[in-house]
């Protein structure tokens, strides 16, 4: 029936399925652990004489992007409203938390208590005109919104809060609690036979490195919370209503779903997530500057959304990684066999990213997640548990089929 039969077929609800889920989580936890300690001391991949860096700073930056793209999944992937203005809310969250931490000494996570409601309300505010403006027009208006963010930040009246053109620098760093055996963990990892060398140079962690690992772990937890919440949202009644709105507005309305409510809510949620992403960004990088939040960022979010896979949660993870790493990896490409060096000077980042996008669309039009799912499907397929209707024989019971009684009736 299928071109490639999967190696394992697991039924939902069975013990195997539980084991599969636990394995999945364990792998995720392991991956996070490895990334934290392996990339802390910036690793690099060398290809064709080009040095591609993997640092935990950039991974945390990717996490901030992941949360922002998650927001886009809610509004664009699940509710079908193409918003090109996520950068606006990302920047708002960034500046808001930077101001609270730098000028008022708040704790980073405490700022969420302000950032989330403010961005949510801004999103709602924005969702209202979005009710009238549809489709491509909406996309263009939101793009305009993203484009004006830097100019708004630079307004003189806001200068005491935003630091103006020099940016808002934040000195507060998240310091790991003393009892956390980070040094010990690194020493332990260093002792591993083959892989030990990747976990640093045996000198323990400097305070800066400890901060980075700690920040990474905290942000991972925050991101997981966000993903879990969105997952719940999608599977819940409002979530199904949103997807109904995406698929066919008229049928949804006819079925009693309030279009205006769900549309504005989705904008609110998306903007709130964008703001959270902004907070993570500033917490890691220590500065909010207007040059970071231009229309290019909003366009990159869309790229991440689509490259990852629209309407999927894991797509947001991939999308975040892609837009955090690929532009810098692309500009680190200084030499490629066959290409004259002249062509790799200057704006190589844009060139390689652009060409990469085009190639990707041909190879994986549904996003990278489609490719990953195909690979996963080769290995394992989850099938829903067949329903058991009272009175009928269990269809998976082969013996029952072969018995004379059923042979007659079926």
């Amino acid at each position, binding site marked *: 029936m299928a071109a490639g039969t999967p190696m394992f077929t697991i039924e939902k609800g069975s013990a195997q399925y539980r084991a599969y889920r636990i394995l999945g989580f364990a792998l995720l936890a392991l991956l996070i652990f490895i990334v934290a300690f392996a990339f802390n001391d910036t690793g690099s991949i060398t290809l064709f004489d080009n040095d591609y860096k993997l640092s935990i700073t950039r991974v945390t930056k990717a996490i901030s992007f992941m949360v922002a793209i998650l927001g886009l999944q809610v509004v664009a992937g699940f509710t079908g409203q193409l918003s090109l203005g996520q950068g606006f809310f990302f920047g708002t969250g960034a500046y808001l938390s930077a101001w609270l931490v730098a000028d008022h000494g708040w704790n980073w996570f405490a700022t969420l208590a302000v950032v989330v409601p403010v961005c949510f309300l801004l999103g709602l505010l924005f969702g209202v005109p979005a009710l*009238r403006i549809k489709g*491509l027009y909406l996309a263009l208006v939101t793009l305009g919104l993203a484009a004006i963010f830097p100019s708004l930040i630079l307004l003189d009246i806001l200068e005491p809060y935003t630091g103006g053109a020099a940016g808002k620098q934040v000195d507060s760093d998240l310091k790991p609690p003393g009892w956390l055996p980070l040094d010990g963990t690194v020493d332990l990892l260093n002792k591993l036979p083959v892989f030990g060398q990747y976990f640093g140079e045996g000198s323990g962690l400097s305070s800066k490195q400890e901060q980075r690992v700690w920040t990474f772990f905290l942000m991972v937890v925050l991101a997981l919370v966000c993903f879990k919440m969105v997952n719940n949202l999608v599977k819940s009644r409002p979530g199904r209503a949103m997807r109904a709105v995406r698929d066919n507005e008229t049928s949804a309305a006819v079925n009693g779903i309030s279009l205006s409510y769900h549309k504005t809510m989705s904008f609110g949620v998306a903007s709130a997530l964008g703001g959270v992403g902004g907070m993570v960004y500033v917490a890691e990088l220590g500065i909010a500057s207007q040059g970071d939040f231009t229309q290019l960022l909003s366009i990159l979010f869309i790229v991440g959304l689509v490259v990852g896979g629209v309407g999927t949660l894991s797509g947001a993870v991939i999308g975040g990684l892609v837009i955090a790493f690929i532009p810098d990896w692309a500009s680190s490409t200084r030499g490629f066999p066959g290409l004259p060096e002249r062509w790799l000077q200057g704006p190589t980042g844009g060139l390689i990213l652009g060409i990469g996008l*085009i190639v990707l669309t041909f190879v994986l039009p549904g996003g990278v997640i489609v490719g990953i799912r195909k690979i996963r499907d080769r290995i394992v397929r989850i099938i829903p548990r067949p329903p058991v209707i009272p009175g009928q024989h269990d269809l998976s019971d082969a013996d029952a089929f072969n018995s004379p009684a059923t042979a007659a009736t079926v």
Partner: protein
Amino acid sequence: MELLINRVFDGLSNGATYALLAMALVMIFKATTLINFAQGEFAMFGGFIVMVLVLEQGLPVWIGVIVGMILSAVLAAVIERTLIRPFDPADHLPLVIITLGLFLAINAIAGIVWRFDPRAFPEMFPSGNVFTYGNASLSWYTVGTMVTIAVVAGGLTLLLNKTKIGLAFRAVSSNLESSELVGIRVGPTLQFGWAIAAAVGTLGVAVFVASPVRQLEPQVMVTGLIFAVSAAALGGLDSLGGAIAGGLAIGLVQSIVVPYLGVPSELSLFAAVAVLMLVLLFKPAGLFGTAAVERV
């Protein structure tokens, strides 16, 4: 008074470029309901082609412009055939990504080949003023840009209404499936649309930088795209006349509303977006666009 007149002329002449770019966007949108994010970059690249032809190969300005338009049309046609045609026109997402990719790639290529410093562009219209009223003056350049829009609009209308291929184009924009059933080859028709759009865009950039005040450089259309899409949306994404109205309106908003309403000049883009949003609130399909009527 004179200041106001100067501002009006400024607005009209800036608006003319937005109008030309907006017309290019509308051409593609009409046929495919797709916004080509790379439109500005196609136009900029076409502008550089014209510059090379005129300044390095020595062609007279207008010949160079026409040849440049043809070359950019050919380039766009090739791109459509290789990169756009393979995809289902109804599925927008892959196409959005491709146009974004083209946006980045073409901008980078122009930067690599011609670098980022401003370049002089040959003048297309006679220099000097038609008349001067105190401090206000109407330059030949402003007049020239308005004439260009009129000619282009007229040309496009003729093309769409009086030629066979124009008819095919209108059919495809109206109803893709029926057109296919009737035997219209949709692919080449859309390709034609892309080619025309690129040519119009090139003319737009050429006119824009032919001003004695401006110079050509690879970033010239990066922000221009936002203004052009605002103009196109303002006028209605499927209306050519609307694109002109929208372009001029945005240009005038920038030059008149901003200083007189006390909006700081760095927020002129903000003013344009605000105007766009206000219009769309009352007319969701733009000033002259056709409202979508869905059959349930």
